[in-house]
């Protein structure tokens, strides 16, 4: 196991506001790392620090083997960033944009040409290479942004809400590209997202709120730890079911005639169903989701 990003006690304040209060985590090389948290949690501040755009107040970090604050140019050469907002020039074509931004990486003319050609192919932007960036659709822009981030073949790709604001089909396309980069090129993906189905595909999740890390783990670990499964029962005789649950002191809530019984594991539903068989008209077992993890830990919805 190789840690491509390591963060120890990283801190940042803006005046009175402690945006990041000393966080520790690491990212394994070649993994997809999802960084979650409600708006204002400190995610963007953390990313800005890791990408050398904001100087930390304290703590240490290394990215791609380079120490933050000491070897910033090393970090800058080994990371690619897809920002939340468009960062390319609207009045330049995609190709011109790629050549301008690619020139920042000290490549020879020949290397730059090859690098742009490769980025164009991977991000699949050849269809609109000669069109001005400002005239592209949202999905095309996003792909151009990804191409820009890939020019210098970075070992870590930071993506700040890469699929926000895209239509479902484009979202899927962009997501597929990101997955391919990880799987086929072994690139480490560090992303923030608002979509739980995307976070669920990550290898590792870190959840942040109020400048602190709340939880870390694989999606299934987090679900096991912080989400409860739920049994939903619609009884023929509500009084009889209430009696049964109270006798066994099983906690439950009733919502519109449906009894909601939280469970440690889905399998625990089996004996319960068996015993109440005669009294049931409808059943649903819901296993805990990442949404629940998020909700339980931050007390707010993902879209807050």
């Amino acid at each position: 196991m190789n840690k491509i990003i390591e963060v120890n006690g990283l801190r940042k304040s803006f005046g009175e506001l402690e945006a990041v209060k000393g966080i520790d985590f690491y990212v394994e090389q070649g993994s997809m790392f999802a960084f979650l948290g409600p708006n204002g949690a400190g995610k963007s501040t953390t990313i800005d620090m890791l990408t050398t755009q904001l100087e930390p107040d304290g703590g240490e970090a290394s990215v791609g083997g380079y120490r933050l604050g000491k070897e910033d140019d090393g970090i800058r050469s080994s990371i690619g960033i897809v920002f939340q907002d468009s960062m390319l020039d609207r009045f330049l074509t995609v190709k011109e944009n790629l050549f301008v931004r690619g020139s920042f990486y000290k490549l020879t003319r020949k290397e730059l040409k090859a690098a742009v050609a490769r980025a164009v192919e991977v991000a699949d932007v050849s269809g609109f290479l000669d069109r001005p960036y400002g005239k592209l659709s949202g999905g095309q822009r996003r792909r151009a942004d990804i191409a820009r981030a890939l020019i210098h073949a970075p070992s870590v790709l930071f993506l700040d809400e890469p699929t926000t604001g895209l239509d479902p089909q484009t979202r899927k396309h962009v997501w597929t590209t990101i997955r391919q980069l990880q799987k086929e090129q072994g690139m480490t993906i560090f992303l923030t997202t608002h979509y739980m189905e995307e976070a669920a595909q990550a290898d590792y999740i870190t959840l942040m709120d109020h400048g602190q890390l709340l939880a870390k783990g694989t999606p299934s670990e987090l679900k096991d730890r912080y989400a409860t499964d739920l049994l939903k029962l619609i009884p023929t005789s509500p009084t009889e079911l209430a009696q049964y649950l109270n006798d066994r002191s099983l906690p439950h809530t009733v919502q519109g005639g449906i009894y909601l019984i939280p469970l440690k594991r889905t399998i625990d539903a089996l004996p319960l169903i068996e015993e109440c068989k005669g009294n049931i008209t409808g059943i649903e077992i819901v296993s805990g989701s990442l949404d629940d993890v998020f909700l339980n830990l931050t007390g707010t919805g993902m879209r807050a």
Partner: protein
Amino acid sequence: MNVIAARNIKLFFRDRRNVVMSFMSVFIIFGLYILFLGDTLKSGLSDMPGVGFILDSWVMAGILAVTSVTATLGALGIMVEDRTQNILKDFKAAPIKRYDLVGGYLLSAFTIGLLLSLVTFVLAEIYIVLQGGEWLPFAAWIKVIGLILLSVLSSSSIVFFITSLLNSRNSFSTAGTIIGTLIGFLTGIYIPIGSLPEPVQWMIKLFPVSHAGALIRSVMVEQPMQASFTGASTEMVQQFKLEMGVAFQYGSTISSTALSIGVLLGTTVLFYLLSIMVVSKKAR
């Protein structure tokens, strides 16, 4: 540096609004001049032969000084845009040296300022000739081009300093409006310096761009004045020059070409140093 400068120049010329905005003050001065300022000035000097040629040359010289400011201001608008639209984030996250970036902005501002000034110069000459004046002699063309170079250099330093203090598109457009409105007065173009009250005269004399105006005027009005002032005393010639801001009087001394060139070079150095201070403070 060159790639960034080339990018800025492309961005500037592809967005027509930039070009129009850079020429806005020039259009306004020119418009006012042909509508009524020119007539007012001419009626005050009605007994002078060839007054049209002198005044046309005089106002065009002033316009050239103004262009060096407004064009570089328009060009540096791209720097403000980059900052407000966070495009700068993408630059800062790449291994690019800060001086390459700043140098790129300056180089593009200088190039754009120079290009637009040269275009203005050619159009101004065409206008003068169409109005019955004469072409500048070849040596004077070279002199004016040299002075344009110098004035763009000094104006870009002042404008760069001002824009380095601005953080939003709003403050930039406000600054643009203020500069665009005042510049015609501050360089003594709308009204010749001699007709203004003493305190305003001092503001003009202390404003570096006025010296670019004075230098360019001295070259451009030389030929028409030779025709109009034949037989006139040196005192009369000197009086006219001071009245029209071809030279400035400080107490008992009268500014020379060397002094005005010194003012422009000094401004350039001073404002670049100030800008470097602001920019490096911001980097932290």
